[in-house]
């Protein structure tokens, strides 16, 4: 099993979610987050005051998938989250040792 954590532009979230549903991935955890990579944010001057926007709004999608879905999930996220501009986000992939469904204590991929 593999955990995919994608941090993407909020404006791309709907498109990414719909595309993931279309390839059969429905379970995901979504969070509203803030942060920056090399993008660093920027400063706006508004009515004589400086507003430093150093942490930019992003959406974090987390999901744990069986191995056979991992590549297609990554490709789907890349296709729909990419605008080619700085700030498009990142995808992190890591291995998962175990998954347990709390309701019936089922384990492994069957619990996903």
């Amino acid at each position, binding site marked *: 099993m593999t955990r995919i954590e994608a941090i993407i*532009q*909020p*404006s791309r*979230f*709907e498109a990414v979610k719909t595309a993931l549903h279309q390839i059969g991935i429905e379970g995901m955890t979504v969070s*509203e*987050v*803030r942060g920056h990579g090399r993008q660093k944010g*920027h400063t*706006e*001057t*508004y*009515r*004589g*005051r400086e*507003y430093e*926007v150093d942490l*930019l*709004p992003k959406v974090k999608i987390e999901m744990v998938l069986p191995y056979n879905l991992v590549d297609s999930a990554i490709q789907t996220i890349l296709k729909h989250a990419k*605008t080619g*501009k700085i*700030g498009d986000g990142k995808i992190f992939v890591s291995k998962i040792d175990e998954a347990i469904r709390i309701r019936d204590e089922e384990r492994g991929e069957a619990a996903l």
Partner: protein
Amino acid sequence: MAVAPSIALLRDSYTAEAARIEAEFAATSDGSKAVQARSAQVDQIVVQLTEAILGPDIQRVCLAAIGGYGRRALFPFSDIDLLFLCEDPVTLKRYRDPMRSIAQTLWDLRMKLSPANRLVSECDSFSRDNPEFAVSLLDQRFLAGDRRLFNRLHGDSLPRLLSRSGSDLLQDISELTRQRHAKEGDTIFHLEPNLKNSPGGLRDYHTACWVAMLSHPHRIADWAAPENLWPAQRREEMLKAFDFLAAARCFLHYKQGRDDNGLSYELQAAAAQRGVGLEAGRPVDPADWMRIYFRHARAIYSLSTQLLDESLPVPMTLLSRFDRWRTRRSNPETSVVGGRLAINQPELVRDLDRLLGLFLSIAQEGHKLGREAEELISQALPKTVESGAHVPGLWEKLRQILIAPHAPAALRAMHSSGLLVRLFPEFAVIDSLVMRDFYHHYTVDAHSFMTIENIHRLRQARHDWERPFAGIFSELEEPELLFLSLLFHDVGKGMPGDDHVVTGLQAVEQVFLRLGVEEDEADTVRFLIREHLQMSMNLLRRDIFDPETIRGFAEKVGSLEHLKLLTLFTYADIRAVNPEALTPWKAESLFQFYVSTASYMSRSLDEERFHAGAQDEHIERILKALAKSGARPEEARQELGAFLEGLPRRYVLAHTPEEIAMHFQMARDLEKSDVQLRLSKRGHWYRLILVTTDRPLLFAGISGALAAWGMNIWKAEAFANGAGTVVDTFHFTDPNRTLELNPGERQRLEQNITAVVSGQTPLEDLLRGRAVTQAMRPPKITVATEVRFDDSSSSHSTLLEIVTQDRPGLLHRVSSALAQTGCNIEVALIDTEGQRAVDAFYLTVQGRKLSAEKQQELRDELLAAG
């Protein structure tokens, strides 16, 4: 001890009887009868089982039903509250195991039991940690065992508890109710309400019972039925409401096979199809069935909150005494009891003017409208005002209500009494309207009131992420237009058509006609309703840090004032979807979007100039406006193009076609007289528009003349076209009420300004004659002066931004300093936020940007002038 009956036998008889009750309910839809029947069924089993397990020892203990079971209102899957009472600790210990065995057997029969063991002597003490137990004791009922023990509880311990701690219990009930209501948004109008816990649900019905009992301590000894302690005229509607809710809750329990009281969309449709709670079980449309539900919930909510308000002692502070005195003195026709407004003179409700005055007092003071007053108004309405009638002065009265701090309370009271729909029949289509979607929690009318409440609550912003929006709210020129838009923004949802924005815009035209709003006011409301989803959609689907997104959005919005209104609209609208819809993350993103757009508008002001194409849509709209004023549009086309040529695009976007048409006419009239001036009053402020040809010291002259007259300029703008025609607008207040108290002075002010601008009167003469001697109030906050230059925003001018303490004559001093250093104002935008003046000028010196030396000279001059 006797042998306990077999579980199998008990289960068979329990199941058979339960099935009979369910079948009877299915046939009659009589929920009240079903809950009584189930209580009786459980009584029989519990008594039979207890007698069997305890045998003759049953006389050593007492078994009582409490809570919902005690009041014989046991819903099909509700918990069964049982109380085992004993005389002393030894007996309690001795019978603990048999009592546990009784409970276990009942559990095995799949009854959800909540048993409690107590000594009778413990029942007279009130624990603040567990007010629910004391509340459940209020509905105690003897089941089996030692009746003397029960009589001691009933006739001795409980009356003692209530006389000692009744007011504490009342306070706890009030606090628990307040918390529960707050969690549910303080409204009954949930799209998927919980029949037990939502405001207006069964919990509130029983709260009305408990509060009535606790508020009549002298009746506790005789344990009067609480329903008989309610005001007589409310009893019938309460009992009907209970019957309806009882039927609906039974239906839910049977349908789902568990104690789940959430009335989902699917269950609403199923209940409506079966006509649950209705006479003869006739099927109805789900929306109509929900309207009936809301009517019953409203009756329960109204009485329970009224009884709570009346029952709690009001601390008689000096302020509250004054408040009561003032209310009585200034409104002899009304009085306030327990925070609720009662009508003393019934003829009041037949006079619309006085009736609107009553709602204004609610909006200002925050009282609730008493139920009797509401009914009085409701019954009189057909004689008070014709439906949708044109009422002279209605806009001014509604405006005052909308901007008052408790406007949502007044609007809700106007709605529940029927007045709002009477005045605006367009609102009727969203009355208690359930729109099924995944996110909204409230009916459309409740959502609309909540949006208005969200804005007014900004006055007491508590979270960091709310404060920037509170700041924007405090800067609005005409907040009433925001509130008017919010009130009607979703009326289209109740009308046939695919797009509620389009149908809503059509409906609101009738509202404008009836209110008689000015065309530019109507235009702002149209803009807000038309674009009310724009910011949310941009936040969701566009990159709000992309300059192209910002540019496109700024074009659509047009002016900073529109941007402020739309930002607050979006804030209020998202927040009224459900309690969690506006997260701090979303609020911060919305504010960043606002800041980026505002900043873009300011930076692009001078750079983006208007150049009309052959069929420019702006030109067409202005020509249409000209035609309305009697001009011949085709003859004016070319001349209008020349007038607009080179004006900042922002000018064209920020003004309505009617305003631009007026400016154009003024520019045409320059042939007759070289200074054209219009002065008009809007609410508590004045607007001066001046059109002339550009000349040195123009801006300084006008601002100086206004300062000499003691006027307080809080907003101004200066635009010029390519041919050097200037359109300057000043918004000012008249703190000394000179113009209001001396009508003749208005003409003299206009003459003075014209004379100064045309050079006939030196400004110094005016200033000398009326030295600026206004007493300066010490500022509440001190604002440090900041002077900034920016050469990057425009290709040919320098942007100067000044932030400083606002004070009389400031703009005159600043613009004089600009003139003295040889600067020409290309564009100016002057604004005031509380005590901060925020001024932006695009400047040139001899047609070029300011050099570094000139910037330094000007900075020194400004700091010296400040």
